[in-house]
């Protein structure tokens, strides 16, 4: 074995050109796989650093009228916690933006309000200090204590003396009692809380949000629970559903048609990343990327296998001698496999190093996101094991065929004569040709996929969101966090908007609680005068409390009726609303919606429709329109409010001016989001952008590797056919006829490969359908375009070796024999 290895090293050195090209192909192939696996590892594979995480589940509320799994209200959570016997404990948490005042500025930090048993349930031990005691979550506003996230602690300076010190959150003083361990970033991948605060402190942390904790209908809390030993997830779910049924009967108006779904913690951890109704995104993207990178690896392996087959011709003599000296075929296969596995492992080393570099590039490529995403795609031991396995595996894959072929050399030679097609084109159905066919097929599949994603990205950019896409700034502030009550918050927001309006570079400044292409609050709506128990009369709509100038500032067209006036926003004014086209046609399909009435499920007050606005995108660019109710802004929530500023000059410049105005009004008001509309749109585009970038680069890689493969095979084939081509030229073949002969051989392979690739693409692209905006998975332009592109590349890769055939001097060619 050591001898085999020593000889293998010598062989790699003896054929340096071969070794370098094969090494590079493997570095690219294994590097791409390691990078992709690193991403998947970070997204779904790497287990949460939670004790016995397989026992932990997430508990979701389901509602027959809302798609997907929802959060749970605080009162319901308390009932579930009390009544269940399936769990040893249940904990709840909710994300919350918190203003942390340091010196003269107030930072917006990501907080997690958690029940006192959160860390105990997850069995997470502090890296410094201690975690919460049960009594610290018992009395409202009784225990102002905070645990810091590890990264955030490092950001604050990383001093151990921080434990016991005070920090100012939303103007209140809190004591730091501990720091979470480095590996723990909550139970939702990508969302790394800066601070953890007991839920009993919610009035200070979410001032003005009391109602949220009291309403049994409010979908507020994420729930984790640990199964009792011996209780299965389905048993627990059955019991929880029974409790849900009882809660539905006890509170029919708010718990109607609501129940419970359990998802294992590990399965749920990456579902929050892409937002509601997109739970499978992380998994789908992972599968797509994995398929793409495995294809790349196969193409790279095919390249190396082809190089090995070419080299094996050169080593025919060596093998003949070995056989003559009595080496068994098994020995020869072992020797050759040692060589290819060595090559694979070397390529694996290079690939891992490449992946380390790519990991940083990927993080740099991450587009701005509405909430900071913290992902660590850097390889860990899991990735290293994966890469090592891939390296050995590919060494065997690309080495086996050439090794077997070589060990059976004479036999194959004999076979060759019989396998000859005799078609005149010199095509042989040999292994090398098959590999080329497979390479072309796989890279066509990949290129079509990346083409679809690129087109989807382009289409998504061209989608009209229904509002201004230039000269607009979006700034979210949260006066409630700075201690303002609803009325004073409203006043201060109006004052800020007024000051902004006075700037000569501003054409309009208005506010909305809903941020287009991000989200906001939704409400269940009942048509007035119809039976609220009939589900046709009860629908879910998004909810936009706005100031009257909003439509003009955003460039949203008011189609019919009238706009809001300042009077409509007064407390005792008659309740009126403007709805969008979708709501008009969904609620009043064949009637005129103008002048009709509806009410919010949570109130009895009838509301009159006074206007109909054009549709605009609410959450994503690719969404099917959801109903939107515009409502005069009358009160403030603790969720913050967003200023929309239509600028006449460069919107980027105006952002800092807006920040200055907010700070001049009150330094304590946290600014939680500030973007130009261009930046904001980039965030909305990021799934398709990532898809386009990742698949596009993988597609490009496949394209390069496959072209290399075709070129290599054709160049080798021409060199093998020197004598034949020389004879043909001596017998009168014109140069054009010789070129055509070589081209025909190559293009036949390419055509077969393209055929298989198209077949595979037609059969599989629909799997990516849900990830594509405005592009059919069988988009003819992409299919035809990419196929032609690849055909052209194959042509070029055949043409240059064919040109080389012309340099063949018949006399020399004929003399070699």
């Amino acid at each position, binding site marked *: 074995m050591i001898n085999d290895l020593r000889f293998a090293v010598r062989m790699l050195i003896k054929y340096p050109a071969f070794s370098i090209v094969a090494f590079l192909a493997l570095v690219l192939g294994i590097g791409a796989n390691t990078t992709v696996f690193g991403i998947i590892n970070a997204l779904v594979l790497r287990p949460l650093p939670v004790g016995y995480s397989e026992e932990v589940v997430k508990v979701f509320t389901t509602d027959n009228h809302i798609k997907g799994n929802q959060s749970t209200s605080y009162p319901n959570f308390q009932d579930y916690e009390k009544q269940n016997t399936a769990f040893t404990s249940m904990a709840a948490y909710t994300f919350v933006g918190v203003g942390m005042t340091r010196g003269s500025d107030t930072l917006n930090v990501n907080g997690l309000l958690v029940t006192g048993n959160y860390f105990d349930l997850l069995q997470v031990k502090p890296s410094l200090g201690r975690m919460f005691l049960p009594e610290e979550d018992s009395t409202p506003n009784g225990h102002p204590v905070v645990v810091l996230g590890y990264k955030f602690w490092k950001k604050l300076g990383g001093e151990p003396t921080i434990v016991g010190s005070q920090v100012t959150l939303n103007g209140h003083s809190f004591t730091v009692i501990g720091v979470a361990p480095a590996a723990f970033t909550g139970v939702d991948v990508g969302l790394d809380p800066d601070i953890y605060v007991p839920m009993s402190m919610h009035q200070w942390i979410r001032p003005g949000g009391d109602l949220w904790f009291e309403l049994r209908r409010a979908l507020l809390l994420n729930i984790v629970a640990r199964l009792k030993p011996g209780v299965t997830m389905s048993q627990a779910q059955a019991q929880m559903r029974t409790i849900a049924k009882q809660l539905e009967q006890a509170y029919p108006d708010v718990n109607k048609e609501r129940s419970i779904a359990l998802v294992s913690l590990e399965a749920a951890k990456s579902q929050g990343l892409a937002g509601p109704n997109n739970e499978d995104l992380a998994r789908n993207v992972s599968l797509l990327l994995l398929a793409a990178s495995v294809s790349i690896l196969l193409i790279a392996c095919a390249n190396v296998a082809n190089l090995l087959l070419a080299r094996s011709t050169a080593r025919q003599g060596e093998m003949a001698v070995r056989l003559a000296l009595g080496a068994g075929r098994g020995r020869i296969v072992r020797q050759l496999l040692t060589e290819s596995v060595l090559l694979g492992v070397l390529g694996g080393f290079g690939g891992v190093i490449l992946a380390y570099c790519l990991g940083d590039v990927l993080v740099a490529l991450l587009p701005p996101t509405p909430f900071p995403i913290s992902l660590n795609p850097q390889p860990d031991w899991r990735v290293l094991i994966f890469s090592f396995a891939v390296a050995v595996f590919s060494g065997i894959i690309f080495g086996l065929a050439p090794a077997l072929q070589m060990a059976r050399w004479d036999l194959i030679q004999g076979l060759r004569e019989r396998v000859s097609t005799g078609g005149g084109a010199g095509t042989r159905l040999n292994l090398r040709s098959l590999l080329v066919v497979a390479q072309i097929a796989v890279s066509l599949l990949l290129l079509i996929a990346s083409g679809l994603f690129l087109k989807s990205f382009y289409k998504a950019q061209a989608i009209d969101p229904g509002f201004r896409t230039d000269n607009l700034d979006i700034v979210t502030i949260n006066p409630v966090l700075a201690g303002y009550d609803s009325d004073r918050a409203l006043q201060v927001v109006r004052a800020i908007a007024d000051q902004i309006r006075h700037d000569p570079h501003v054409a309009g400044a208005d506010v909305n609680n809903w941020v287009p292409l991000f989200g906001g609050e939704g409400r269940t709506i009942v048509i007035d005068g119809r039976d609220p128990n009939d589900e046709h009369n009860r629908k879910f709509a998004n909810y936009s409390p706005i100031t009257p100038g909003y439509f003009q500032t955003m460039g949203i067209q008011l189609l019919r009726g009238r706009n809001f006036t300042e009077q409509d926003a007064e407390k005792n004014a008659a309740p009126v609303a403007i709805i969008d086209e979708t709501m008009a046609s969904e609620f009043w399909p064949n009637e005129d919606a103008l002048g009709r009435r509806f009410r919010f499920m949570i109130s009895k007050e009838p509301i009159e429709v006074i206007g109909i606005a054009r549709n605009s995108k609410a959450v994503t660019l690719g969404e099917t329109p959801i109903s939107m109710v515009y409502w005069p802004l009358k009160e403030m929530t603790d969720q913050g409010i967003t200023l929309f500023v239509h600028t006449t000059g460069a919107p980027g410049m105006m952002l800092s001016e807006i920040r200055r105005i907010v700070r001049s009004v009150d330094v304590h008001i946290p600014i939680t989001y500030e973007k130009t509309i261009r930046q904001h749109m980039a965030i909305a585009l990021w799934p398709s952008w990532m898809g386009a970038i990742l698949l596009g680069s993988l597609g490009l890689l496949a394209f390069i590797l496959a072209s290399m493969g075709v070129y290599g095979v054709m160049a080798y084939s021409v060199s093998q056919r020197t004598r034949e081509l020389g004879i043909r030229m001596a*017998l009168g073949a014109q140069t054009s006829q010789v070129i055509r002969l070589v081209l025909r051989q190559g293009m036949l392979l390419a055509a077969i490969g393209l055929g298989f690739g198209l077949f595979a693409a037609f059969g599989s692209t629909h799997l990516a359908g849900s990830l594509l905006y405005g592009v059919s998975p069988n988009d003819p332009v992409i299919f035809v375009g990419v196929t032609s592109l690849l055909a052209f590349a194959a042509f070029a890769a055949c043409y240059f070796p064919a040109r080389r055939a012309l340099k063949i001097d*018949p006399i020399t060619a*004929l003399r070699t024999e």
Partner: protein
Amino acid sequence: MIKLRRLERRYPLGKEKFFYVLRDINLDIEEGEFVSVMGPSGAGKSTLLHILGMHDSGWAGEYFLAETAVHHLKPKERATLRNEQIGFVFQQYHLLDDLTVYENLDIPLSYRRYSKGERAALVADMLDRFQIVGKKDLYPSQLSGGQQQLVGVARAIIAEPKLLLADEPTGNLHSSQGEEIMELFRKLNDEGMTIVQVTHSEKNASYGKRIIQLRDGWLVRENR
């Protein structure tokens, strides 16, 4: 048929130095002649034949083939002239291993202006004439050396050339097989074909009417 004047072929040998393979060759071959070129190994016989067969173009001097000044022709015109006038037989047969006997015979026709029907007829004719109809679907490796060279000759003359060039056609054959080829040449020559062959054997040379001796690139003697 062939007229060579001051024909010269040299290969560069370092800078400013040349290795002369053929020097100052003056030669006339009439239509219908059967000429044998003889001389020791390395004398330049193959080189001369490849020049006559227009496989080589790196020579200097004058070469007239049937009144056409080959030295003035462009490569394309040379190729056309060659395809019309010349057939070539190799010492190593140079049949294509992946093609059957039938397909090997068809190659020269595929590079000339023949219709499909004409090609089939000519190949059938040739198989008949050389009595190898039964072997038409065999591959070269399934034939004996003599049979392979028979196919080689058939392939050389299938496009009806006026001039047949053969470089040691019997060099790889037993004497009895060689005789068969030589008889074939005599018959072709009787039918009017001009033949130039390279040979080492006095006996084979005797089939021809004239012998040319080459030595170190010089044409030293002619025996008529």
